[in-house]
């Protein structure tokens, strides 16, 4: 009779779920809160003074595993430079149909010019619209991001302002000693983006680590934060 009991147990589970909580989000009506590190559409950032961050180095195109980024750099005009560097991204195109949203371009970018946002509604009615050019990707001088269909009810500009948490989460080398540091530059419109909350010094995980691993606990909390250059040799100390 054990098998009958099992049958009944199964039936009880499904019956109980009738009164259970619904997991479906009624999408266009209520938008779900996205995870911090959600990989959405890219934007090209500017410095607060309006200069483009992109220096046309094509490292993003080189890093892209889907070969969906096309960049052509050009020398900055001397009298009206577009970026602070020598060169700037003259052509910048991303084919969103090929993009796999891996954020390797973000990782490769030396100037944090390209970041990913939380916007994922990118459906288009023809293939050409899926190739995002500089006019869609680059944010305005005042920090407003561009959208291909700004009148669309799904076009949420706030989502476009939210940078993917990846570049705000890890310090160079991903080392715990740099938690809370903001090694990234300011952007137009948003200023210096704060570090990802889970990486703040009050992270509970640190408390459960054994002492010899807990780098922060060995530091004097009253001491002012050491500069990045001073912290760098810590790798040797740990060993």
């Amino acid at each position: 009779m054990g098998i009958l009991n099992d049958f009944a147990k199964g039936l009880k589970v499904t019956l109980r779920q009738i009164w259970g909580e619904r997991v479906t989000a009624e999408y266009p009506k209520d938008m779900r809160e996205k995870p911090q590190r959600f990989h959405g559409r890219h934007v090209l950032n500017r410095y607060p003074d309006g200069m483009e961050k992109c220096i046309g180095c094509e490292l993003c195109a080189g890093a892209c595993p889907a070969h969906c980024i096309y960049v052509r750099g050009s020398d900055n005009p001397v009298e009206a430079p577009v970026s602070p560097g020598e060169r700037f991204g003259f052509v910048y195109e991303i084919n969103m149909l090929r993009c796999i949203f891996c954020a390797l371009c973000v990782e490769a970018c030396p100037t944090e010019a390209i970041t990913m946002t939380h916007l994922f509604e990118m459906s288009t009615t023809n293939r050409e619209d899926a190739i995002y050019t500089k006019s869609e990707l680059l944010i305005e001088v005042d920090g407003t991001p561009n959208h291909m269909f700004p009148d669309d009810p799904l076009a949420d500009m706030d989502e476009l302002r939210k940078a993917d948490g990846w570049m705000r989460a890890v310090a160079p080398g991903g080392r715990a000693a740099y938690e809370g540091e903001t090694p990234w530059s300011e952007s137009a419109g948003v200023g210096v983006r704060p570090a990802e909350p889970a990486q703040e010094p009050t992270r509970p995980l640190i408390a459960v680590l054994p002492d010899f691993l807990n780098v922060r606990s060995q530091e004097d909390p009253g001491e002012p934060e050491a500069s990045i250059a001073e912290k760098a040799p810590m790798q040797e100390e740990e060993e």
Partner: protein
Amino acid sequence: MDFWDVLFVAARVVLAFVIPLVAVIFLVWGERKINADMTNRIGPNRAGPWGILQTVADGLKLFFKEQVTPRKVEFLLYAAAPILALIPAFMTFLVIPWGEGFTWEIGGKVREFAFVGADLNIGVLFFLAMSSVAVYAIVLAGWSSGSKYPLLGGIRGTAQAISYEAAMGLAIVAVILFASTTSTDGGTLSFVELVERQRGTWDEVVSLPGGLSWFENVLGLIPRWNILPQFIAFVIFMIAAVAETNRAPFDLVEAEQELVGGFHTEYSGFRFAMFFLAEYTNMFNMSAIAVVLFFGGWDGPTFDQWLPGIIVTFLPLFWFLLKTAAVLFVYIWIRATWPRLRYDQLMNLGWKRLIPAALVWLIASTVVVSVRQFGWPWA
């Protein structure tokens, strides 16, 4: 035969087609909603209030879709199979009694109306015959599609129908046998008559020896439905009914993970809709027949002293539909819960469990019934 007679016959013909269609609309919607509830989803909620028009929308879509005909099909049988699936489903629906008849005086004559398509005196046999014919549609659809998955589905359909029809038939025989003792008229195969014999309470048929007469008061509260003495037959019938309608956990005929869509893989558009319609009509029919055979059909409290006449007339219909809905809920509940059987398990359950169990139960019923009727052989 006057104008009114013709009108009512016409109305009956129309209703015989419309009621199953409407029932299927609600059934499909109900299945999707209940399934969604049981898996913590919302289910259809766009078309109409609570998505109740979703099935209508889906049906319309299928109606206007292209009917793709693969090159290798045997066209005549391929086109006939969906119709063959639909006919037995509608025919079975005709013999199911929905409620008590009523009389209505119109056109200068008192006319009788019955809530049944046709009260056949061999209704049960007719139903068994029709449920066997239904399998032809599956076999023919599978074979004529000229494709391997439908063929496998069709072959499975045949084997399954043969295996489970025997058990179902034997379970029904036990019920018929039992019903033959509860009336002085002897045996019956009419669904209407079977329902009539389940009215009242148990104290009318059971007479207990003196010391136990207090128990008759308790029996007087329990309706005289066949479910109580024939519970085992009911369990066998329900298992066989789920298998006959090719529903989960016996849906090997259209096992999606193995056979794409099973026998209807190569069907699209309205032909597919016809298979779909037939499956759900069959499901409704089986539930209705389970209610008729085991749960007293339209029997229920009548409240004829308190309610106005028109409601009293239609209240049996309500009870019938309520019970049918309850059985259908169990169908859907099972589908949402249990995984599909493996093919050998299906055959084992059919031949090694259900048929012996049905046979034993039939013999046991026979013994009880004959002792009740003729006394002990040595007495």
